[in-house]
C-alpha cells in the first residue's frame, strides 16, 4: 500500500482515543491504507502533536487525522501540512477556526454537555431550583473538551455561564464547586470526596467522562449516598453504558470515535484516489458524527436511546 495516513490523538491512554485508533486501524487494513499513529503525552500536550504533524510531512503521508489538543495553537502546523499537499481532517474536536482543516468529523462536545444538562434538569424536575451540583472536570489547564462539556451541561441545565470559554467563573449558588479529575477513577473519587466534604447535600454530579463518574460513584458509595445522587457523564464507552444500565450513571452522551476514525480513513483513501475532499454535514460547518443521549430513564423533550441500543453502538 503506498497510501499512508497518520492518526494523531490527544493521548493514547484515554480509552476514547484508544478505540478511535482501533477503529482507524481496522478500516485502514480493509482499504489497504498504511496507518501510523501518534499521540500527545497528556491532554493539552500541543508540542507532541506539532512534532507528529512534522513527522507525517517528512514521511510523505497522504492524509492526517487529528484530534487536536489545542485547537488554536495547532493551526499553523496544520497549515504547513496542507501546504505540503496533505489532506488534514480534524477528528472529535473542531479546529479554531474550523476551516483550518480540510474537513472535520466531530462530535459537538458542547451539544453533548447540553444533552445531559437538559436531561438532568428534566429528571430532577421541580427540585431544579435547589439542586446542588458537583462539577468534576478534566484538568487545571482547562483543555477545550473539558470546557465545552462543562459549559454545555450548565447551559443545558439553565445556569448562567459567565465566560463560556472557561469554567469556574459561575456565580450560581447551585454549583457547589469544580474539582479536577484527570479523567480517571482516582481523580473522580478524590474530587467527589472533597466536594462532599464541602457540601454533603450534593444531589447532582456532572463528570467529564465515565471513568471519573465511576470514581465519583465509589466516593458516594463509601458514604452510602449512591442512591440519592444523580450522576451524568459524557463519552458512551461500553463500560460507561453498562454503568448507565446498572444505574451507576443516570445518563451519558454517547460519541462515536470509531465512526469518526473509519470515516476519516475512508476520506483519505478517496482523496488519494481522486483528490476529492469530504463535505460537511448540511447546515453545519463540520461533518457531525453525532451524539446521542443514552439513558434508561428517558424524559420528555430530550431525545434519547436506551442502554440496549447504546451497548450496540458503544466503542469498547
Amino acid at each position, binding site marked *: 500500500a503506498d497510501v499512508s495516513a497518520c492518526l494523531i490523538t490527544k493521548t493514547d491512554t484515554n480509552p476514547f482515543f484508544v478505540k478511535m485508533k482501533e477503529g482507524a486501524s481496522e478500516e485502514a487494513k480493509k482499504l489497504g491504507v498504511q496507518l501510523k499513529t501518534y499521540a500527545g503525552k497528556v491532554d493539552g500536550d500541543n508540542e507532541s502533536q506539532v512534532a507528529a504533524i512534522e513527522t507525517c510531512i517528512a514521511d510523505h503521508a497522504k492524509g492526517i487525522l487529528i484530534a487536536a489538543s489545542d485547537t488554536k495553537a495547532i493551526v499553523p502546523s496544520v497549515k504547513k501540512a496542507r501546504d505540503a499537499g496533505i489532506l488534514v481532517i480534524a477528528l472529535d474536536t473542531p479546529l479554531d477556526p474550523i476551516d483550518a482543516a480540510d474537513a472535520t468529523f466531530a462530535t459537538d462536545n458542547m451539544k453533548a454537555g447540553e444533552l445531559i444538562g437538559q436531561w438532568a434538569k428534566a429528571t430532577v424536575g421541580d427540585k431544579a431550583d435547589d439542586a446542588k451540583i458537583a462539577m468534576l472536570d478534566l484538568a487545571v489547564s482547562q483543555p477545550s473538551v473539558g470546557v465545552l462539556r462543562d459549559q454545555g451541561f450548565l447551559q443545558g441545565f439553565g445556569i448562567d455561564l459567565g465566560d463560556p470559554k472557561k469554567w469556574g467563573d459561575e456565580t450560581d449558588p447551585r454549583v457547589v464547586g469544580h474539582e479536577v479529575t484527570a479523567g480517571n477513577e482516582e481523580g473522580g473519587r*478524590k474530587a467527589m470526596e472533597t466536594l462532599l*466534604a*464541602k457540601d454533603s447535600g450534593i444531589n447532582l454530579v456532572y463528570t467529564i467522562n465515565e*471513568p471519573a463518574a*465511576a470514581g465519583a460513584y465509589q466516593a458516594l458509595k*463509601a458514604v452510602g449516598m449512591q442512591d440519592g445522587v444523580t450522576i451524568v457523564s459524557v463519552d458512551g464507552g461500553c*463500560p460507561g453504558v453498562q*454503568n448507565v444500565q*446498572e444505574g451507576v450513571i443516570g445518563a451519558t452522551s454517547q460519541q462515536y470515535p470509531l465512526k469518526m476514525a473509519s470515516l476519516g480513513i475512508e476520506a483519505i483513501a478517496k482523496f488519494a484516489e481522486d483528490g476529492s475532499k469530504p463535505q460537511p454535514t448540511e447546515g453545519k460547518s463540520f461533518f457531525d458524527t453525532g451524539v446521542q443521549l443514552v439513558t434508561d430513564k428517558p424524559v420528555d423533550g430530550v431525545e434519547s436511546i436506551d442502554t440496549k441500543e447504546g451497548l450496540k453502538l458503544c466503542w469498547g
Partner: protein
Amino acid sequence: MASEARGPQGFETAIHTGPGTVAEFHHKRSAVSQIRHVLHQTPSIVPLLVLIVAIVVFGLILGGRFFSAYALTLILQQVAITGIVGAAQSLVVLTAGIDLSVGAIMVLTSVVMGQFTFRYGLPPFFAVACGIGVGALIGYINGFLVARVKLPPFIVTLGMWQIVLATNFLYSANETIRAQDIETKAPLLQIFGETVRVGGAVLTYGAIMMLVIVFALAYVLRQTAWGRHVYAVGDDPLAAELAGVQVKRVLISVYVCAGVICALAGWALIGRLGSVSPTSGQFENINSITAVVIGGISLFGGRGSILGMLFGALIVGVFSLGLGMYGTDPQWTYLLIGILIIAAVAVDQWIRKAAA
C-alpha cells in the same frame, strides 16, 4: 647498626601528668536552644507541628464541617495511597536514592492483579500474589542496576518509569475493569476499599494498611540491624561498606521492598477506585516525593524518619481538602501546595541551622 632509643620520645613524658580530659567546652542550654535541640533530634516533630497548625487553622476557618470525624478520617482515606507509596519512596530516599517509578509500579501491579483474574481467569488470591511478584521483580531490577551496575537511581528509575508505564498501557490495552465486575467475581481485589465506621469516623482498610506499613517500617528502621544499615548506606555508602555492611545487598533489598510496597499500594488502589484503571496513579511519584520532602527526609540520604513522611502526606491532604472545602479554585490549591513545599523545607532548614 646503631638503633635509636626505643620508647616514647622525650617530649611526650608530660602527657601522663596532665589532667585526664581533652578539650571540652561549656554547653549553654537556654530554653530556646533546648527546644531547638529537641526539634533537631527528632526531625519529624516539625511536620507534625505544621500538620497540627494546618488542621487547627482550617478548623477555625471552615468550622464543624472540617473539624468533624468524617472529614478528618476522609483525609486519611485520601492520603492512603500516597502514604503507602511514600513509605516505599522513604526507604529509597533514605539510601540517598530516589524512585520515580513508584507510581508506575503501583498501576502496573494493579493492572496485573485485575487482568490475571479477568483475562486469564486465575483465582484472585493468586493474581494478587502475581501482582506483588511483579512489583518485587521491578524493584529488583531497579536495585540491581543501582547497586551492581552502579547507575544513579534518578536515571534508573526515570527510565524504568517510562518502561513500566508503557508496558502498563500496552499490556492493559487501556481497558478499565469495572467495579461491578470485580465486586461480583473477585471481591478480594477490592478488600482494601471496605470501611470500618466508628461514629462519624470512616476508615478504609486501605488507610489502616497505610498506618500499619508506616509504623512497621518505623519499627524496622529504628530497631533492627537492617534498618540501621539502610541509614548507614544512605549516609556514606563507602564507609558503610568498609564497616562491614553489605551495601549492595541492602540496596537491592530496599528496592525490592519498595517494589513490594508499591504492589500493595496497587492492591489498595483497586480498593479505593473500585475498578482497575490503567490511567491512575501517574502523579504518585511527585506526590510521594513531596510527602517525603515535606516530612523532612533528606534527599541526600541517611537522615529523617518515615513518620515525618506520613505527616508530610497528611499536610498535603489537609491542604487539598481544606482548600477544596473552602472553595478555592484548584489552580490556587496547586499554587499553594507549591509554596507549602518550599516553606516546609525552609522552616526545616532554619531549625537545623539554628541548632547545628
